[in-house]
């Protein structure tokens, strides 16, 4: 049994292993990118660095979903919306950084606004040229939306499939809204042609490396935070709400407050993931709100295994690596593969990859130790 504080969450074994592997992989990639020349066999290309960074953002998003789905039993099919909102907030900042380097050379108005014949900046675009303000929006916008949405939904005791459907409707509605030019976020083209972030050129290798490291750090911090939450009494209440919500109420917990708390924290993490993602891929458009994205996200977590945290991270990386390889071979079949994967996992591996490993771990361990025993007895003989 864990009775976590932030400090114990930081130093417990799972967190140490997780952070160790994460930083080792990141460091290795960065060193191979920086130290070896491009024609060396050991060279890691900038493309790969960015790809890794992207995967880590997905992993952070999956972690956020695991917190609400795996631990609290809220199957959100709209978590992509929080990711996209964080992304848009970052995109607005990057847009303002372009300044007069855009196609139309307008010092304040982004290109798409000039194109639409807008004369001045809409009120909600003010302030985002300051990074601190954009950072605040990255946290506040997804957090606030989740808070309001969750407050309405959980207070009315919307649960199960109904909740899943309205979260899906939420992201769909946002997608339709962001497609409109009048909304002032670049319509279907979204925000793109970014130049630099905090003064660093987004085209530079060093910036890409920096973004990868930032993504790894964000993932590590989020992981420790989630370990803390799930190991605390709050985490135990949340699990109780998942397994027997009405019992939790009769014991005296306002279960809707707990759900709201977790949902909001999760949305903020998703927003941070989106914000780190956008400068690495160089674009954010309404497609990120697509319901399909949120569903894919659910598949990552299901594949990796729910309610373990690292399972979600592993699932996100494995499925997305698979997607990268697969879409290179036959892009049109990806959706079928994804659907098939989901069915397979649901039917044959309800606990996901980590569940399979955990179940077989004692056997594996026994076999390993038997082998070593034999070796030692051989040595003796």
């Amino acid at each position, binding site marked *: *049994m864990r009775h976590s504080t932030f400090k114990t969450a930081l130093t417990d074994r799972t967190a140490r292993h997780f952070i160790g592997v994460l930083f080792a992989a990141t460091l290795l990639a960065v060193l191979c990118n920086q130290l070896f020349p491009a024609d060396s066999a050991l060279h890691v290309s900038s493309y790969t660095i960015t790809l890794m960074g992207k995967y880590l953002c997905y992993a952070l998003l999956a972690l956020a979903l695991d917190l609400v789905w795996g631990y609290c039993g809220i199957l959100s099919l709209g978590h992509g919306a929080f990711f996209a909102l964080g992304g848009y907030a970052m995109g607005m900042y990057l847009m303002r950084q372009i300044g007069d380097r855009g196609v139309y050379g307008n010092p304040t108005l982004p290109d798409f606004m000039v194109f639409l014949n807008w004369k001045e900046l809409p009120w909600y675009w003010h302030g985002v040229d300051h990074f601190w303000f954009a950072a605040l929006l990255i946290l506040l916008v997804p957090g606030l939306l989740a808070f309001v949405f969750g407050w309405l939904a959980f207070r009315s005791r919307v649960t199960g499939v109904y909740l899943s459907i309205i979260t899906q409707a939420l992201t769909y509605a946002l997608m339709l809204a962001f497609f409109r030019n009048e909304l002032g976020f670049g319509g279907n083209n979204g925000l793109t042609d970014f130049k630099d972030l905090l003064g660093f050129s987004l085209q530079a290798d060093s910036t890409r490396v920096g973004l990868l490291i930032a993504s790894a750090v964000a993932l590590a911090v989020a992981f420790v935070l989630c370990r803390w939450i799930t190991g605390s009494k*709050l985490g135990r209440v949340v*699990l109780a709400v998942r397994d027997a919500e*009405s019992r939790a109420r009769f014991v005296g917990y306002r*279960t809707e*407050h707990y759900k709201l708390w977790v949902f909001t924290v999760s949305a903020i993490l998703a927003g941070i993931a989106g914000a780190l993602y956008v400068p690495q891929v160089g674009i954010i458009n309404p497609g990120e709100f697509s319901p399909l994205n949120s569903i894919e996200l659910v598949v990552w977590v299901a594949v990796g295994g729910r309610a373990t945290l690292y399972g979600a991270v592993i699932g996100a990386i494995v499925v997305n690596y698979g997607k990268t390889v697969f879409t290179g071979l036959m892009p049109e079949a990806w959706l079928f593969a994804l659907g098939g994967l989901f069915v397979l996992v649901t039917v044959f591996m309800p606990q996901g990859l980590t569940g399979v490993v955990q179940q077989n771990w004692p056997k594996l361990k026994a076999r390993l130790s038997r082998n070593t025993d034999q070796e030692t007895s051989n040595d003796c003989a």
Partner: protein
Amino acid sequence: MTALDSLRETFRRDQVFDFMRQGTRPVLPGQVDAGKNILYLEDITVSFDGFKALNDLTLYIKTGELRCIIGPNGAGKSTMMDVITGKTRPDSGTCFFGQTLDLTRMSETDIATAGIGRKFQKPTVFPEHTAFENLELAMNAPKGAWHSLFSQLSGEQRDWIEQTLATVGLLDDRDKVAGLLSHGQKQWLEIGMVLMQKPQLLLVDEPIAGMTRQEVERTGELLKSLAGEHSVVVVEHDMEFIRSIASTVTVLHQGSVLAEGTMQQVQNDPKVIEVYLGE
């Protein structure tokens, strides 16, 4: 009492001006103002699709008493508990906890916090938590989300949990996941959870289902020992068990009270013999 205190007492709004009481809202949230009776159910009617599960039920529970409720299946015993705990809202009637808490207007959570603990007919524990954690979660302690994030068990709280584990005979299984406990053990764990809430009123729905003889005896002892300090309402089928914890018995039939009195009186009541004992 100093003169100042008595002056203040004289000017307490809630006592001086009745209209300041804001209808039937609690005077002090969560504070039970129990006199002779702790629970008042009056003219409660609950219908499901026209079928009256409770029909003008009127029932009072005295402070500190151990009351047994019996009645054939479908008599409305569990539904009555649903009404008291806020799970079901009555179509009509009033339901007061103490003098001032109108249970029909309070949420399940508020009712639990005010001091009513319930063991369900079907044992409901948190299946993925250990026995210890189940009791920790049920513990009478601040229940806010932020508070829970930072809360750590104190030594006293740990002792208290262990004491309760011992009371319900689960000390050896403290680290066992509740879902893996036997049916009888789950019943006990749930009773333990109710105890951890430090309620003033315990509602215990069919506590001995799935228990062995010895376990039944211990449960009887436990319930008897709780009365006095707590008020206890036990719903049971098992006549022998009821007799063993001998107390006031209320017979429910078709959603209303058929008879009330000692076991002796009730057993000799012709109406009761006809509908229940006679079958």
